[in-house]
């Protein structure tokens, strides 16, 4: 076991480092209530805008809330949004892509719709969608997923069309394999590697988009400590209390970096040929 892990670290250092960093961040998110010295929304009016010190490692904000505790809890929102958006957009995008790749008529229709959706810059589409509904983590997840689905669908469709030309698929068709079985047994397994890699990039980009939405006031409700919300909160007092923005900002950047490292590592570890253009993030 240890030997296997050692071999993986040597062969794919980026992947290993990214996974390690991500595991640490996930532990932080899960254990936040146990590690955080204060409640995430606990206000101590006597300790407003204190600089980082031994009492408050990351300082305190305008309401006397502990920035360190809030930053730890912020990991929860970020990871939840990232993972949920990836799961939703991958599964729906996979279905749409498979259907489009299987039927020419449906393909033309679906892909025009995807082209239209993809022509709206993702952050703007998410903003426009969020403006229609009330702020909640669920709505943020739905809005960001909608911006990512077309990209997954396009990727999957492209792979399906390439696979259809491959001899083993032609052989399966010639042998009379039914459509459903063809898709599930021969095509689907071959889309998984690139889709998985795309999923990591979607996770990274969803985390950034959530922070952007919250930062400009169209995202996570302000009473939930998310990194974007904390940074929005610190905007007014940035010149005198830069730490309110800088600490959650660094956490966000490091988490996104870890996810992207996992993505790059996976891309190199799995078949690299299908994935050359991977890594287009959206915000």
């Amino acid at each position, binding site marked *: 076991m240890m030997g296997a892990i050692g071999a993986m670290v040597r062969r794919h250092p980026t992947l290993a480092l990214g996974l390690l960093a991500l595991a640490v961040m996930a532990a932080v998110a899960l254990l936040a209530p146990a590690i955080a010295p204060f409640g995430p929304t606990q206000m101590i009016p006597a300790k407003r805008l204190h600089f980082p010190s031994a009492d408050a490692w990351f300082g305190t904000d305008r309401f006397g809330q502990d920035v360190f505790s809030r930053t730890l809890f912020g990991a929860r929102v970020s990871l939840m949004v990232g993972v949920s958006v990836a799961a939703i957009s991958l599964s729906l995008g996979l279905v749409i892509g498979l259907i489009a790749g299987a039927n020419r008529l449906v393909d033309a229709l679906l892909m025009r719709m995807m*082209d239209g959706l993809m*022509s709206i*810059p993702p952050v703007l589409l998410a903003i*426009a*969608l969020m*403006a*229609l509904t009330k702020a909640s983590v669920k709505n943020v997840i739905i809005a960001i997923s909608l911006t990512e689905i077309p990209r997954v669908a396009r990727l999957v469709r492209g792979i399906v069309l390439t696979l259809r030309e491959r001899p083993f698929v032609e052989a399966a068709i010639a042998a009379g394999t039914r459509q459903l079985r063809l898709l599930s047994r021969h095509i689907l397994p071959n889309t998984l590697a690139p889709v998985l890699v795309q999923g990591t990039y979607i996770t990274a980009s969803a985390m950034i988009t959530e922070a952007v939405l919250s930062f400009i006031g169209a995202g996570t409700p302000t009473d939930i400590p998310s990194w974007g919300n904390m940074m929005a909160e610190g905007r007014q007092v940035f010149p005198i209390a830069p730490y309110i923005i800088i600490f959650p900002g660094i956490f966000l950047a490091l988490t996104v970096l870890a996810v992207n490292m996992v993505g790059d590592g996976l891309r190199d570890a799995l078949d690299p040929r299908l994935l050359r253009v991977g890594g287009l993030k*959206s*915000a």
Partner: protein
Amino acid sequence: MLLYILRRLLATIPVVGLVAFFVFVLLYIAPGDPAAVIAGDLATADDIARIHQKLGLDQPFLQRFLTWLQALLAGDLGVSIFNGIPVATLILQRLGATLALTIASLLLTLSFAIPLGVIAAARVGTMTDRLAMLVALIGFSQPAFVLAYLLVFGFSIELRWLPVQGYAPLASGFWDFFRHLLLPATTLALIYGALIARITRASLLEVLSQDYIRTAHAKGLSSFRILTRHALKNAGIPIATVVGLGLAILIGGVIVTETVFSIPGLGGLTFDAILHRDYPVIQGVTLFFSLAYVLVNLMVDLSYTLFDPRVRL
């Protein structure tokens, strides 16, 4: 050549139509009654009904879409709910600052990202390559506003070299314009440039593995000449494609960067519109940016003819 251009132009029309349709749907399902807003606080139900009729809000969906589309083609994007100013006017007022920031970021990006990608590809596998790609990966993982605040903290607050925020139009003198634009443009260029550097390296490596490159080496051409004259031109199409597609990232970045630096551009307009739930403005800006994005990508498609004459056929 003409046929190719014509084909690309024709292919753009349905996309633009769909974008317009999606944006209309967003406006259609937006909560609130624009007629009630226009009528004001003292309006009676009758007044509102009259405005409904006047604006055609009592018409069925498809009818409303066609009316809206007709107005759109005449440059009418509706009126802001918040201050009653036509959305098209608001966009034109704010366009200058956004355009200045976008162009500055784009120029800055191309000036360092492509050389960085070329150097990394030329020295593939060495420490230089690894370092360049590590920097690119870190840049690529930065949320624009985090990087923006780090730069402001370092260069404006600690070192006091540059203004913390604000914008000066070119008319107020180049130096002032430049000083205000430097940090926001650098923020965007670092993020966008990281993406371009990655794709430049990847496309070049692909080209460098081909036979004609070996031939060029064999006939004794210098590595520099092979890299710049033979390889880079053939890597041009994927690079141009990502420059175009990446613009979506740049646009997202522009919106937050303008917010951080209080630049009076379209991002600032969006920010205010969200605050007031000013749907026509949000929709107008969305439509405007989407059309700009589609147009730029059309130009990218047309630029393929410069890199590869076969495309012209």
